[in-house]
């Protein structure tokens, strides 16, 4: 088990300074729209992933016009030991991540140490947007329980960028360095094939867990399924690259590979994106996240942090009740919730006296205990 004891921010988003002592169970952040509630969740997300949940670049995380750096410091209680995690970023300098003052060799070393699941209003993008959103979600998910996967992914992306640049250069110069292209092909094949195998195996393990949670959330018997699509299913990557060579040279980019992979969501055998009702889509997302929680917990042996942004606005009664009864049953580790209405949250937690709760009042960049 682990939980965050305290959180300190300097010049992070709309906070100049903030210092919070956290409750090991449930932490509620209450305040008006635009006060900075979601920014607190993003700081916690940043602590776990060393990047913003919203895909902002690091400079955008700095309090605008007031500083050229930001700083996040978290005290983590992990079993009987306390870890001090600090992340600092300054414009033009390298980002540093330290645990008990020891700097990580690589930022990748940090991912997965503190597993986390976030449920947020824009999760619906996973269904309606293109494949990139789903790859980002699944990659961030697997990376939390598989170090080698993260390394392969970073390596693949780097080689892919280099290969695409080479293809452009070949077109410009009107001649092709076949040995170098072949070198990149073999490197892409090495990392891509391993990414493909990990994703395939992960999907087959994850889908049954997901289906279980979908039944729980929807209370029904609708069948759901997630299908993993990859260019590598039909053909070994080596053959695929050889076959695409002329196309790639003409297009000046790599047209096939794991960077094009996708996951397709089905409900009752039909495309969720097209045929799913709004309620079914919401159930699908919540089930996806709860299954992620359960899977991560089982894989890492740690109860992940659970970040719930605006769920009282966005979830309907039935799905909310399922989630709340899980909270009441202590199915989760430490939880962070945002809401605009304090009465609504207080009423909910009065019904579960066995759960320890702390409320924070958020007002335009300042936070105080309630």
């Amino acid at each position, binding site marked *: 088990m682990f939980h965050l004891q305290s959180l300190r921010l300097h010049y992070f988003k709309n906070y100049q300074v903030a210092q919070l002592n956290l409750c090991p169970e449930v932490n509620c952040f209450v305040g008006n729209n635009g006060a900075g509630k979601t920014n607190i969740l993003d700081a916690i997300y940043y602590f776990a992933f060393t990047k913003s949940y919203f895909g902002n670049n690091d400079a955008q995380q700095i309090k605008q016009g007031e500083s050229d750096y930001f700083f996040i410091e978290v005290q983590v209680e992990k079993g009987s030991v306390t870890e001090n995690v600090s992340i600092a970023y300054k414009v033009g300098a390298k980002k540093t991540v330290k645990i008990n003052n020891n700097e990580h060799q690589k930022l990748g070393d940090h991912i997965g140490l503190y597993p986390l699941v976030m449920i947020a209003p824009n999760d619906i993008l996973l269904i309606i947007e293109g494949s990139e959103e789903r790859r980002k979600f699944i990659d961030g998910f697997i990376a939390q329980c598989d170090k080698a996967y993260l*390394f392969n992914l970073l390596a693949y992306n780097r080689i892919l960028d280099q290969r695409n640049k080479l293809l452009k*250069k070949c077109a410009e110069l009107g001649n092709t*360095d076949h040995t*170098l292209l072949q070198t990149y092909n073999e490197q892409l094949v090495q990392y891509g094939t391993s990414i493909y195998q990990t994703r395939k195996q992960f999907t087959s393990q994850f889908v049954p867990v997901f289906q279980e949670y979908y039944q729980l959330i929807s209370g029904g018997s609708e069948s759901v399924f997630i299908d993993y699509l990859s260019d590598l299913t039909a053909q070994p990557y080596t053959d695929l690259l050889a076959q695409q060579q002329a196309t790639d040279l003409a297009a000046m980019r790599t047209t096939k590979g794991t960077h094009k992979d996708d996951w397709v969501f089905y409900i009752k055998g039909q495309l969720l994106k097209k045929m799913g009702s709004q309620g079914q889509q919401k159930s699908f997302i919540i089930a996806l996240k709860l299954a992620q929680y359960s899977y991560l917990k089982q894989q890492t042996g740690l109860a992940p942090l659970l970040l719930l942004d605006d769920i009282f606005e966005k979830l309907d009664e039935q799905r909310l009740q399922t989630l709340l009864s899980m909270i009441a049953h202590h199915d989760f580790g430490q939880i962070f919730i945002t809401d605009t209405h304090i009465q609504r949250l207080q009423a909910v937690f009065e019904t579960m006296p066995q759960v320890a709760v702390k409320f924070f009042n958020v007002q335009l960049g300042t936070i105080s205990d309630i």
Partner: protein
Amino acid sequence: MNYPSVLIEEAVNELSKFPGVGKKSAMRMVLHLLKQKEHEGIKLGEAIIKLRTQIQYCERCGNVSDSSRCNICANPKRDQQLICVVEDLRDVIAIENTNQFTGTYHIIGGLISPMNGVGPDTLNIASLLLRVQQEQTQEVIMALSATMEGDTTVFYISKKLKDAGVRVSTISRGIAIGGELEYADEITLGRSIALRVPYQHS
């Protein structure tokens, strides 16, 4: 910054072109020079001029040299049939400091990275291939950074050497993945060279 003298300003501007030296530390150097006896400053100036005008590069391996062949290439005690391929001069110095290596070097001058505009033709790779062929080299040891670009370069060169009848090995990567050679401590680096492994085509 305001300067009391154009001479100081010029010196500060030149010194602050060094990597890691800002205007402030450049200023400190200048003030230090002025505080010392005049001949100290002149000695420094002359050393720099001599360095820039008289330095030579070994025509065989690319190492710095006082003549057309460097000390290492000219040393009969070194195994001239063994070539260690490195990125730049800093790596030669790091490996020499281990006292573990008795062969020669070939400095290729960088790593293949189309993103940074560096291709095989901008590096000293052709000269390496030619050298191996002409000198009937026994073994080529790749001692390049354990980065993706290092991997690509090792991979590329070993492909080019495939038919040359030379043994190709890489330093064993006791060095952290993503680690630069220059930062590897001497013991790790020395051991890496001693325990080099034959390069496998995957």
